[in-house]
């Protein structure tokens, strides 16, 4: 990588724009790293039962919710941090962290006009439209409903009214706890039990906000739903909780995006996402994860310790996870499917890109419980710089899962000789009629491929971007249209400067 100092004296005849664009490649490419000065309301530092009570009180939660949180907290005290993942990081001091930070604004903004303009400006800068877009004459673009979560609270949820016309509930989980307690009580922690793992239990105790989606029977959600997560305050952790319920014969596509400012400290993001698909329902969940990955020396960055799980509870239901992971210093994330209903289907498409000193340990679990269930896993890992990129996935068929079927393909690509790519599949067949196939390869971009592209006038970096895009194409095509273009750009950004 060249520095400004390394550039020899410029010749007159070189186009200034060319030089600028080349130089731009070398400065830190994380364009979401700005910080917004917004006054926040914080919980006292540290974690104790009082913190849990404080959060619950802030959210005006009913007593049952507080009891539920306290039970989770007490359970959490007896648990230890998991160490099996192939990631190494300095432990976070949970007592030196804020578990609640909320932008100060009027307690419950009735409309966008009451929301702090600085906040709306921040989301604009991130490219997330919070104002419901007016339809311009002749230009009709599909709308996306957004739930914007900053630090610990949901600031605004758009298109709620339009969605409620067809009976869809799309709101923050805090509102859902107050307004739809029977739904929340029925489904919360029914997919990820409170004591599932260290981070999920911690999340259960201190989760602050997230999205709640309920699609009634037979409804096809008319627009993409999405949540945009933003960590803004220093020394905070974000504990989001998302719950999506798709009743029989319904369909929903949900997108999730996330960013954070550049800081030289590590911040924790420990989310729990639960999906429930009933008979014939389909949930498509897409994530573009772009938390701050730390600087080029591996300082700072987000610890992304996430539990995501979908339950195909009804027959012939389908849950599909698509993820593009480019951010976070440490990623520990396994979006999974429990294929409980007969004939249910699970899909997992993933692109995980690591550069710098990032460490990714991600993959999926496909638990086949019902008859004739099928699952498909396509995972592409790309490691560059000094990073480590691990795919860890479990496929298991229980004794009653007659006719279970899985196909897994995981490919890794190494760019440079200081990084590592690892594949750890767990293939568990407990049933004679189950058919599993697993395939994995690791390779580097061949000299022939590079030569071919460069010979046709592409620069080295353009050639890498082109080959990588080809490598990940079978995953990209499962992303919603708006995301696909964005992701292609993101991939070239994450890999710039990694050649050689």
């Amino acid at each position, binding site marked *: 990588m060249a520095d400004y100092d390394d550039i020899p004296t410029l010749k007159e005849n070189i186009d200034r724009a060319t030089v600028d664009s080349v130089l731009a490649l070398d400065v830190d490419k994380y364009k979401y790293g700005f910080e917004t000065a917004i006054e926040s309301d914080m919980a006292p530092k540290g974690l104790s039962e009082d913190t849990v009570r404080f959060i619950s009180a802030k959210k005006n939660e009913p007593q049952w919710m507080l009891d539920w949180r306290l039970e989770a907290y007490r359970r959490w*005290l*007896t648990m*230890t941090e998991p160490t*099996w993942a192939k990631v190494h990081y300095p432990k976070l001091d949970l007592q030196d962290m804020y578990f609640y930070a909320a932008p100060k604004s009027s307690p419950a903004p009735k409309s966008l006009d009451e929301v702090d303009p600085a906040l709306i400006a921040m989301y604009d800068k991130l490219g997330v439209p919070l104002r419901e877009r007016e339809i311009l004459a002749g230009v009709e673009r599909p709308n996306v409903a957004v739930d914007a979560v900053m630090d610990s609270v949901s600031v605004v949820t758009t298109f709620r009214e339009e969605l409620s016309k067809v009976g869809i509930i799309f709101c923050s989980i805090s509102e859902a706890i107050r307004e739809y307690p029977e739904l929340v009580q029925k489904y919360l922690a029914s997919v990820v039990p409170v004591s599932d793992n260290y981070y999920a239990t911690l999340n259960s105790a201190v989760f602050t906000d997230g999205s709640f989606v309920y699609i009634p029977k037979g409804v096809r959600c008319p627009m993409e739903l999405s949540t945009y997560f933003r960590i803004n305050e220093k020394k905070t952790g974000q504990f989001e909780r998302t719950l999506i319920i798709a009743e029989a014969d319904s369909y929903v596509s949900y997108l999730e995006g996330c960013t954070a400012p550049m800081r030289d400290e590590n911040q924790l993001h420990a989310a729990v996402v639960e999906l429930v698909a009933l008979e014939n329902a389909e949930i498509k969940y897409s994530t573009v994860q772009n938390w701050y990955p730390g600087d080029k020396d591996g300082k700072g960055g987000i610890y992304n310790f996430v539990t995501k799980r979908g339950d195909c509870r009804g027959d012939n239901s389908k849950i599909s996870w698509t993820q593009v992971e480019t951010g976070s210093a440490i990623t520990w994330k396994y979006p999974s499917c429990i294929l409980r209903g007969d004939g249910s289907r699970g899909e997992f498409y993933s692109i995980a890109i690591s550069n710098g000193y990032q460490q990714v340990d991600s993959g999926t679990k496909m638990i086949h419980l019902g008859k004739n269930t099928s699952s498909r896993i396509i995972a592409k890992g790309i490691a560059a710089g000094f990073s480590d990129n691990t795919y860890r996935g479990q496929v298991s068929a229980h*004794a009653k899962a007659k006719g279970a079927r899985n196909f897994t393909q995981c490919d*890794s690509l*190494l*760019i*440079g*000789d*200081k*990084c*590592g*790519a*690892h*594949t*750890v*599949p*767990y*293939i*568990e*067949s*407990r*049933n*004679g*009629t*189950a*058919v*599993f*196939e*697993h*395939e*994995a*390869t*690791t*390779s*580097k971009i061949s000299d022939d491929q590079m030569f071919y592209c460069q010979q046709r006038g592409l620069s080295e970096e353009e050639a890498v971007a082109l080959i990588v895009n080809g490598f990940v194409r079978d995953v990209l095509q499962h992303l919603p249209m708006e995301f696909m273009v964005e992701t292609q750009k993101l991939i070239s950004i994450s890999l710039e400067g990694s050649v050689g």
Partner: protein
Amino acid sequence: MRQTMPVRLGAAEDTLIAQLKSVGADATAERITVAGLPTRRVESYHYTDLKTLLRAVPPLAQAANEASAPALRVPGAYQLMIANGVIQSASTAPAGIIVGKADGGVLSTRDDILVHLNGALAKDSLTLTLESSVDPVIQIDRRIEGEAAHAADSLKVFVADGASATILETFSGSDAAHVGNHATYVALGKNAVLTHITVDLSARATSHFATNEYHLAEGAKLRTLVIHAGAGLSRTQLFPRYEGAGAHGDITGLNLVSDGQHADITMDATHAVPGTSSQPLFKSIARGRGKAVVQGKLVVARDAQKTDAKFMHQGLMLSDEAEILSKPELEIYADDVVCGHGSTCGKLDEDSLFYLMSRGIPQEEAETMLVRGFLEELVDPIEDAALAEALHGVIDGWLLGK
């Protein structure tokens, strides 16, 4: 406020600790006291939870008084025997072999309880130095005789530069709840060629553990075949290290498990230098409520460019209740490599079965034919005809012994 759970020790662990202390192996005893036997939370024992599987450990083995019949006879083989951990005197060695004895364990230190236990409990080791190519098959007959006993033994083999040999190890013994912990260390010199076969034919009541460590110098070629067909609980660990350019390993294994058995083959291979290759191939066949486990890890070090390694595991389920669990693993730090793994699992192909049966072959016979075909790949490369026949005998014995 944070509480830590102390490890609860079971009967097997208590016995092991007492046995280790009685031989002065306090460090290993301490290790078990603190951590217990590995559970599924220990990655390398994920599918073989020794804490629940190994319920009791019999007393340490005493020298054997009687011996049962050899489990496997290969005509023309040169035989050496280790019974209850004691090396037995042997007939004069054929040309090229120097037979010796050394103190204690043979394995390199490694974070693994079976390796530690063997190191602490194996009293002396049999050493074989193969100075030049040896024609007859060398059979090491390792057995545990008499009353149920906990025995540890070890074998060290050096194959000189350019030499070639075939070594067969058989594990057997009396029908009792033995615990056998066997270790084999093999070093191959430049361009040495070795075929190393281990066959477990222990009684069902026995728990069989074996650890094989291999070091390959430049141009060395190693072929292994591990066959599990005996013990109720077995685990064979294979640790090959490719340490010289051009070294190549065909690490193969066959897990034959019947109702109630648990058999685990775990490979952890390291490609340490540039230009080495390996083709690990494992097959599992499970019937009844048998459980077969295959784990295969390929580690490619930072410097080991141009490594060419492909791991394959194929599982065949002969019953609905059987379990085949596999965990292939790639850990790659060099960028210019071709590495991959594959793992498949399913039952016999219905179409092939129909094809055979429609030609008048009874179902059972047709199944046996297909299973033989499935396994052919593993026994075929073995050149010694008498040895190959003996191995076919072992496989047929399992297939017919339903």
